[in-house]
């Protein structure tokens, strides 16, 4: 038994719903009690879907349990097939139905339905949503491709057979689904990118695919595993059973997009175009199709250097974000984690590369604590991290599911490919204060027109900065580090103890009484957006040293201490 106040992932049958709803011609009969229909609103509200999810719920009640729930299952299946006439049927159960063991899949198998049927067994008490999505997608593909399975010992098809057949090479894009992060636009972006390199897309699935499309999967020369959370198992199975090679680099960020294209060219035995050739210390020609490299090099971006970034997301987006943040934007990654236990190994490896230990958890309060302890200046996370960051007064960009209606924007905003890198530059950098602006605020802060806490471009409220108090309870993004004139080093290594309510107030008062008038005066010269952090760090320093008062000298001692 585990106490959960909020969960990153739903139960596994919601993962199955994501597959069914992403596709066309698939219907899902779910043996479930009243109430489980709540999951429909994830699709109709968050994704603004204009169609009900193709799910029939048996809606059993307590009074049915004494009688024949099996009959109810069979009736629901029959009615669903008659009414919706699907090309393929998924049959499964939610957590409660699993306990009553009606085995709806077995019942359906005995009904002679005349459509391919997949019996979904998704253990609700040990697995979660992404696992359920991956398992459903795998089982569905496996069922539909069974008739085409090559006999054992059949030689693997050559990935360059396109050449012999006189056609363009083609690949499948596997893994995009509803409630996945920006999948709709990623598919468009990657399809365009492939077209530029003369590569066709055979099948996109599950998003927008039909069962008949899944039957065409083996006609492709390679499978692109766009989202390992959903397509990992199916790609491995296709590799084992059909010998289809898998391209596993996820093209998020310019480095990864170039690596993806190189991997793809290698797999398909295509000649690597000159623009993709690696040049020592230089982005390849192709990478300049994105504005990110130049934007990142331009002088305004100098202020991004070493910004402390905390990352928590699904595995795919967390790993990609860590790489982009550290290599392409010059941030310092101070925390990396994921709720995707299935991909924990990969996240741990990515963290180790950055000298970090990965945080693998599905407890958002643990994540929030880690975020505070890491003294992050920017948070990249899910909607939940956005809320945590808000409480801590930190700027945040959302990079991963679970989604909010905001994460399904009307405009084109992929994460993948060259355009995806542009989108990422804007959406991660805009929550921060821009470089020139940061500098100007430092310069003009003594002018009478200048109001402490003013932000020209952030419309979401002024920070509680005037007193240098902590930012709890404000909605404003917090400060970025100081210009060189301020004791910036004091900021850089902070690990402010998050104040607790009553005890915290007493401690706060005790600490405030330590400050002398000249200490306060010196503190007041520090720009407001770092003042709170400088105050905290100096106090931590004073506590550590057992200082009885904090004067200007103590403040500079602290600065020296933290700049080591």
């Amino acid at each position, binding site marked *: *038994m*585990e*106490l*959960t*106040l*909020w*969960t990153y*992932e*739903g*139960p596994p*049958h*919601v993962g199955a719903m994501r597959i069914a709803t992403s596709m066309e011609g698939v219907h899902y009969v779910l043996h479930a*009690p*009243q*109430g*489980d*229909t*709540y*999951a*429909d*609103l*994830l699709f*109709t*509200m968050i994704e*603004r*879907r*204009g*169609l*009900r999810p193709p799910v*029939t*719920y*048996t*809606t*059993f*009640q*307590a009074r*049915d*349990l004494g009688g024949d729930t099996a009959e109810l299952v069979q009736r*629901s299946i029959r*009615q669903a097939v008659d*009414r919706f006439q699907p090309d393929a049927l998924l049959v499964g159960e*939610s*957590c*409660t139905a699993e*306990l*009553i063991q009606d085995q709806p899949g077995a019942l359906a198998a005995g009904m002679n339905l005349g459509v391919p049927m997949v019996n979904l067994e998704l*253990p*609700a*008490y*040990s697995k*979660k949503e992404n696992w359920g999505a991956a398992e459903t997608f795998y089982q569905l593909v496996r069922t539909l491709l069974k008739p085409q399975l090559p006999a054992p010992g059949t030689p693997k098809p050559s990935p360059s057979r396109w050449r012999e057949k006189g056609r363009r090479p083609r690949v499948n894009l596997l893994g995009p689904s509803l409630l996945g992060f920006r999948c709709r636009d990623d598919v468009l972006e990657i399809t365009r990118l492939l077209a530029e390199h003369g590569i066709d897309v055979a099948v996109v699935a599950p998003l927008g695919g039909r069962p008949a499309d899944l039957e065409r999967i083996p006609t492709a020369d390679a499978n692109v595993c766009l989202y390992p959370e959903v397509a990992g198992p199916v790609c491995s199975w296709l590799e084992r059973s059909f010998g289809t090679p898998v391209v596993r680099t996820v093209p998020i960020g310019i480095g990864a997009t170039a690596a993806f294209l190189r991997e793809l060219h290698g797999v398909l035995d295509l000649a690597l175009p000159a623009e993709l050739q690696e040049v020592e210390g230089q982005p390849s020609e192709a990478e300049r199709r994105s504005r990110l490299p130049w934007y990142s090099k331009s002088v305004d971006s100098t202020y991004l250097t070493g910004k402390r970034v905390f990352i928590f997301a699904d595995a795919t987006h967390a790993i990609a974000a860590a790489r982009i943040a550290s290599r392409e934007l010059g941030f310092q990654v101070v925390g990396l984690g994921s709720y995707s236990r299935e991909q924990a190994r990969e996240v741990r490896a990515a963290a180790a590369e950055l000298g970090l230990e990965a945080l693998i958890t599905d407890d958002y*309060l643990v994540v929030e604590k880690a975020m505070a302890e890491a003294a992050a200046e920017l948070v990249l996370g899910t*909607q*939940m991290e956005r*809320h945590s960051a808000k*409480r801590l007064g930190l700027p945040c960009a959302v990079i991963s599911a679970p989604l*909010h209606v905001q994460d399904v924007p009307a405009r084109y905003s992929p994460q993948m490919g060259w355009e995806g890198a542009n989108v990422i530059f804007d959406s991660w950098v805009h929550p921060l204060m821009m470089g020139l602006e940061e500098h100007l605020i430092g310069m003009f802060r003594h002018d009478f027109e200048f109001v402490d806490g003013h932000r020209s471009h952030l419309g979401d409220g002024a920070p509680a900065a005037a007193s240098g108090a902590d930012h709890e309870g404000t909605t404003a993004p917090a400060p970025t580090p100081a210009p060189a004139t301020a004791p910036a080093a004091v900021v850089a290594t902070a690990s402010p103890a998050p104040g607790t309510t009553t005890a915290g107030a007493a401690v706060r008062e005790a600490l405030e009484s330590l400050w002398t008038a000249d200490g306060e005066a010196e503190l007041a010269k520090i720009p407001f957006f770092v003042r709170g952090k400088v105050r905290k760090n100096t106090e931590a320093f004073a506590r550590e040293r057992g200082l009885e008062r904090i004067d200007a000298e103590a403040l500079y001692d602290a600065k020296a201490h933290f700049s080591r």
Partner: protein
Amino acid sequence: MEAPYLAIPSMGVSAPPVQPPTGAIPGAGPGDILKESGQREVFCGLTSIVWLHRRMPDAFFLVVGSRTCAHLIQSAAGVMIFAEPRFGTAILGERDLAGLADANEELDRLVKDLLERRPEIRTLFLVGSCPSEVIKLDLAKAAERLNTQLVGRVRVLNYSGSGIETTFTQGEDNALLAMLPLLPSSDEEQLLIVGTLADAVEDRFRLIFERLGITTVRSLPPRRSTDLPPVGKGTRVLLAQPFLSATARALQHRGATLLSAPYPFGVEGSRDWMAAAAQAFGVPAERFNAVLDPLVERGRRALEPHREVLAGKRLFLLPDSQMEIPLARFLSRECDMELVEVGTPYLDRQLMAADLALLPPATQLSEGQDVDLQLERVRAARPDLVLCGLGLANPLEAEGIATKWSIELVFSPIHGCDQAGELAELFARPLRRRAVLQLS
């Protein structure tokens, strides 16, 4: 409402228990009731935690259930806005399913941890779910056990919010029922308002009752979970919400008198509702009219611009919160809407008697749901507005049918004469919006 208050036909003090209407309701009321069973597009009773926990800020609601339960509540409530919500789910794992003894130990451990972390909690509700009921995890016994351990610090109660037993708002009915044994007995004369109201609306009602000379007015659920009202022979119960069947009956067993009235939605319903109390407490008609007439007049004025939008429009209500019948009464009588079908997940004729009597003759009622069949009726009828849950709203809009989300009605302050305008506005807004948008 032109009649002096003593002549309001739907009123009258009733001796406990209220007699269910026998046979046809004279003069008005619904036609045959269509009973359906099939796929239901409704929430389960767990969802009512969303407003109950706000009502009682010193209570914690711990669902003993599955990841589905946790996901349901967070999806229905959008709970990410809370730093640390006062509800959570003890998610059963495979080990708990294998051995109930362990499950009980686990639950005790988890409750202990939770209460250490949240020392401000005074009442803990253990909320049963579909899986906890199917595996027969005895939460009553668990509550008893925990009560002995926590005596004097936290009170532990239990009820079921499971989907196999409750729909949506019935969760509140069960929660209140669980609180009843703790209510002290007293024959003191008092008016007891039962059902969660927004604090502001409740304050407003209290003020009006005070003006009427009804001074002892208490509420269930109370604002503090430990501040429980007494109950006994002098208690007269006014239900603020139409979905509290079991609680109403249990209060009658404790000696309380249930006042029969329409529910306080709209000007007429709110006036009649207060009139029932006024009559029970012997408030003179002149005084009642002197207090209520200005409110009624103002309420009608607030209603008028919305009535203009809604008049003559055809409304289809899908079953959801059990508020459908009183809302249909309000929308037909005060906003001149035409009722195509009034669905309710469950019909308690006794508690709905006053509202049913005020529905236009031959109103099509339906109880239960087979959502595919019901949507076929919606498509065939092409109503101007459909009241429905969030799972159906965008799909219907995409078919060109305007909708109003029903869940807003349980989260918004809509009770009382002063809120009648706002309530009508909730229904008028989708129609206004359609008129404003110039999109092909």
